[in-house]
């Protein structure tokens, strides 16, 4: 099956002040596939992820060159509506960060902020999102309890529900399971496999096994450069570049 390109980076450079954190990245993100970004700490994975929905804009002194495209349209132009971009390109962070509100309100939050007031729509959307995040059966009897009473894994799935409620097209996940225990991690990984039917997913992970398990394509970053990208199976059975080989086999000195 051929997947069309949902997002792409073209000759993308990214600077924190004078420090160039990304160097001419060319990378296509296929639609309804899971793309994993791997590489040693500090190689630019999170920076790249944040370029995709312009979260880096929030950091002063940063600068982007080249292009980030969504459905072929350049998104790193000043005229673009960033709020609309972030609605289409949602994000889930490393540490679950629910608001100190009820479970229901956490999921409804984005809708309310976006100006939705139809109560029936909101509650059906909350339920749908909790189902999509694999959390509904666990919380349906305590939707109006505080989200802070949930376990770490449940909180992370709540954050996924919160992102999903806005009906994004792309979901960015930055080490979404790194703060979770193995069982909660497994649930997130199962969830990713479900979500890719409807969403394009980009996941940063420091666990290569996780990249191997959940992704269709894997991109290996090293020192701000994209070293190699390809089908995940190829990266983990016969990578083309020696650097990739050394990294995935744990031979990095």
């Amino acid at each position: 099956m051929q997947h069309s390109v949902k997002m792409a980076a073209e000759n993308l450079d990214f600077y924190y002040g004078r420090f160039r954190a990304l160097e001419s990245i060319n990378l296509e993100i296929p639609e309804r596939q899971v793309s994993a970004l791997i590489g040693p700490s500090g190689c630019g994975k999170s920076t790249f992820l944040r370029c995709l929905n312009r979260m880096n804009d929030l950091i002063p002194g940063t600068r982007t060159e080249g292009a980030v495209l969504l459905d072929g349209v350049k998104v790193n132009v000043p005229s673009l509506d960033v709020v609309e971009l972030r609605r289409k390109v949602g994000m889930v962070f490393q540490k679950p960060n629910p608001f100190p509100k009820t479970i229901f309100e956490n999921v409804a939050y984005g809708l309310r902020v976006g100006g939705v007031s139809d109560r029936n729509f909101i509650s059906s959307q909350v339920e749908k999102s909790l189902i999509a995040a694999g959390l509904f059966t666990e919380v349906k009897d305590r939707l109006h309890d505080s989200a802070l009473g949930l376990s770490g894994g449940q909180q992370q799935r709540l954050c996924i529900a919160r992102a999903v409620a806005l009906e994004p097209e792309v979901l960015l996940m930055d080490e979404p399971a790194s703060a979770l225990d193995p069982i909660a991690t497994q649930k997130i990984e199962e969830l990713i496999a479900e979500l890719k039917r409807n969403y394009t997913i980009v996941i940063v992970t420091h666990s290569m096994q996780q990249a191997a398990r959940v992704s269709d394509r894997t991109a290996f970053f090293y020192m701000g450069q994209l070293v190699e990208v390809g089908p995940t199976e190829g990266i983990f059975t016969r990578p083309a570049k020696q650097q990739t080989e050394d990294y995935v086999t744990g031979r990095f000195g």
Partner: protein
Amino acid sequence: METRAHFHAELEALKGRVTALCGLVEDSRQGAVAAYLGRDLGMAKQVIEADRVINQQTCDIDDACLKLLALEQPVALDLRRIVGYARAVINLERLADEAVNIAEGALAGAGLPGDCDGTLQRLSEHVAAMYALAARSFVGDDVDAAMEVCRLDEQARELAVAAMRCITQSLSQCQASPEDGVRAILACRSFERMAAHAANIAEILVFIVKGVVLSQKCQPR
């Protein structure tokens, strides 16, 4: 990302065991030739005796491969190496089985007089060269040597056909007893199988180093 020094040391040790097994199998191969063509019955018994050790080593290496696969979840070159070793030891073990078959033939009776032993001699020398090269390619991760083994396999088949033609001819001219003739044909078949196992080992080495699976005519599949 931490390096995996401990795991890589285990892989290195595994390679040492495969290398040692290559040596045992070479002893058996040489012994079988001496037993059959040199009529050395003591050697024949030694080859048969040695097979137990080879079988045991094969099982042990196979277990070690399985353990590393399960516990270390290797990828890329490490993965191909372990899978390759597990496949290679099967071929080594079978190559040694053929040596046993030849040795048993030697115990059962003499070879054929004259020309036919000459053709078998040429076949066995070709197999010796193929196996030596295969083992060397394996120990040294030498893809060029492995490709050469793969190419030599075609010639092994031709030499086997020539030897069998010689044997059937001498049978039809009543120059050999049916028993001796059949034994010679079986020996011929065993040498040909040895060549095929050597070629398989070489192909496995190419898979390990390059991640490419070879097929007919040594081309990537």
